[in-house]
């Protein structure tokens, strides 16, 4: 499934039940040449180190954060590899996101406080068995006093649960009857859509329904067309179900009374 573009953060690809992985996010450290205390120039680069609990390497699914005036982001991860077992030497850092632009115009506000989601398939490398994450923040514009990332959360790769809002009867079509009956079925369903649809109450084997030639393989309807019709139908049923109070009542008073106090400041 195509992931949504990285912006306001309810990732549709992430199942609702997943919780962010426990990790420690350190505050950003500015990378500066020279003495930090006496040098007044702003460095424009900061690093956020995220430490994961030892011996619990993470299969990363998604990184979510709220931007706070950072212009460009680079993400590096440290991974545990089978070949590392037994070796005491330092593990390699691998770049999985390079110079990702968060603010298209760093001197202006655009993107400065947006929410971002980075999915695993947007990253440059494999992010399984991650033991540490390092975020390198860059803000080349000198007009901003501080820049950082907030509300940083890492989501592990969880169970891919079935989407709960997809009606089960749509995925239970009898296989051998599929070609002939879909067209008839979809016509039947669409005619009953206006009156409201009840799930699971539709019989699947109605070959004689408005279909020339009845049973048999003659003139199999185009599966693309049928699937489009069924999808349209599903959208319509969802809208009907969600649109419980379609009629606008428009009353602004409470039981006929609109005798009010002064306006409230809270």
């Amino acid at each position, binding site marked *: 499934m195509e992931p949504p573009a990285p912006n306001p953060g309810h990732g549709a690809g992430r199942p609702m039940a997943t919780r962010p992985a426990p990790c420690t996010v350190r505050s950003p450290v500015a990378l500066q040449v020279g003495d930090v205390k006496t040098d007044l120039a702003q460095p424009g680069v900061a690093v956020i180190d995220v430490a994961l609990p030892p011996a619990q390497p993470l299969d990363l699914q998604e990184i979510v954060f709220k931007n706070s005036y950072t212009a460009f982001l680079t993400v590096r991860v440290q991974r545990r590899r089978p070949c590392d077992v037994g070796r005491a030497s330092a593990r390699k850092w691998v770049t999985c996101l390079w110079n990702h632009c968060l603010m298209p115009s760093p001197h202006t506000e655009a993107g400065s406080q947006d929410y971002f989601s980075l999915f695993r398939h947007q990253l440059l490398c494999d992010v399984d068995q991650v033991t540490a994450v390092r975020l390198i923040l860059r803000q080349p514009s000198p007009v901003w006093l501080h820049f950082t990332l907030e509300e940083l959360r890492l989501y592990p790769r969880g169970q891919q649960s079935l989407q709960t809002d997809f009606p089960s009867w749509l995925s239970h079509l009898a296989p051998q009857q599929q070609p002939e009956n879909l067209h008839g079925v979809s016509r039947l369903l669409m005619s009953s859509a206006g009156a409201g649809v009840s799930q699971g109450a539709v019989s699947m084997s109605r070959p004689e329904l408005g279909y020339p030639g009845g049973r048999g393989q003659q003139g199999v309807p185009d599966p693309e067309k049928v699937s489009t019709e069924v999808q349209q139908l599903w959208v319509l049923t969802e809208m009907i179900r969600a649109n419980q109070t379609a009629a606008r009542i428009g009353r602004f008073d409470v039981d006929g009374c609109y005798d009010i106090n002064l306006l*409230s400041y809270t």
Partner: protein
Amino acid sequence: MMLEQDTGLSLAIAQIVQRLKGSSLHSQLERQARGSWEKRILKSLNSMCTELSIPLARKRPIGEQKELLNKWNEMGTDEPDLSLFRPVYAPKDFLEVLMNLRNPNYENGDQPSFRNHLGLIQVPLKVKDIPELKDSFSELGLNTGQLGIDDSTQVPPELFENEHVRVGQTVLTEQDSAAAQQYVRQGCPTALRAELWALILNISNQPEDILYYEQLKSNVIQHDLLVDSLIYKDVKLTASNDDYYFVFEDYLYQVLLCFSRDTSVLEHFSYNSATPPKSYIRGKLGMEEYAVFYPPNGVIPFHGFSMYVAPLCFLYHEPSKLYQIFREMYVRFFFRLHSISSHPSGIVSLCLLFETLLQTHLPQLFYHLREIGAQPLRISFKWMVRAFSGYLATDQLLLLWDRILGYNSLEILAVLAAAVFAFRAVNLMEVTSLAAAEAVLADLSTLKVMPLLQIFLFATVT
């Protein structure tokens, strides 16, 4: 095979998509500024209520209801005593608030530096420059026919006008809303404008819409609101004094009084970052089930608000349709002109766009005006807040609003404001005070909008 319900569904989707395009950022500076500005408005209204001893809302006695119903079509003949009422705020008060917007994370040093903007707006929002504007408004280019330029008497109609009218009629026959939006970028023929705008705004005036309007009318009859007096005062002060619009005075009351009671307007607060004012039924302070919005549509009118409706009266004469067109234009466009947000069509961005365009392309003029204490935005702000209504001649205004609908953006207002300054630059360079600059720019009624825009965007040496 298409579903019969398809047209209703796609209409609803189209309306939702239009309204959701681009919601604003909720940055800290906006929230604080908006919070204190909104509180100021509430205090002003509350103090008016207590000083004048007039309730915010009152149920009319039956006699009064009957009387109002009888003179519904001629409310303009009423001469209530409005001398004690004052508008809750005027555009210049709002400008003061916008001038003081500061981002706490932005380095606003006391020393003048490249960080400080030379204009009044100090918020670093991204605005388009002329190359980007040329790209966005490409249909206004020199090689494309425009109504407002290529339909003038010297140009033979066979060259552009006849064909353009024919295309417009086809668009209307096909009832294609997206095509209409593209079409009006080159201007609407006068005879087709009303229908084309209705097509773009998805207004069809169904029986249920007429019924809804009648229900709003009955709400007006039943309850009298303090806000009504503000509306009366505004109409008397602005539209009634205008040569073009005074004939529509009665229509304005019929639209605006109903507008105040329309709770469906509350829906636009989901993408308008402002908060509608709230109150409680008397004696039930703090109890949420007795909380109501005031006015019912959540919008407190300011000085000049009625000018948003006045030009539409030229196009629509049936009150219910006029009402719906106005309401849709308000929740799509006009609300952005008097609320604080960082949206590209929001008033803050428009102000910054205007100042940036002027500073970049007329630097001498900008510097000169600044030196004499006549910051250009002080003059152009009122034009933009009212979308130029009441400043331009009506035919020119409608050509301008054609483009607002066509491009679904208010940026053209800022471009026109800069173009007007460019047009009168020679006179402005000679003035030595704000009052003199105001005088040079006092009368815009002779201006032709489309040539100004075209020259500024496409024919000025940059």
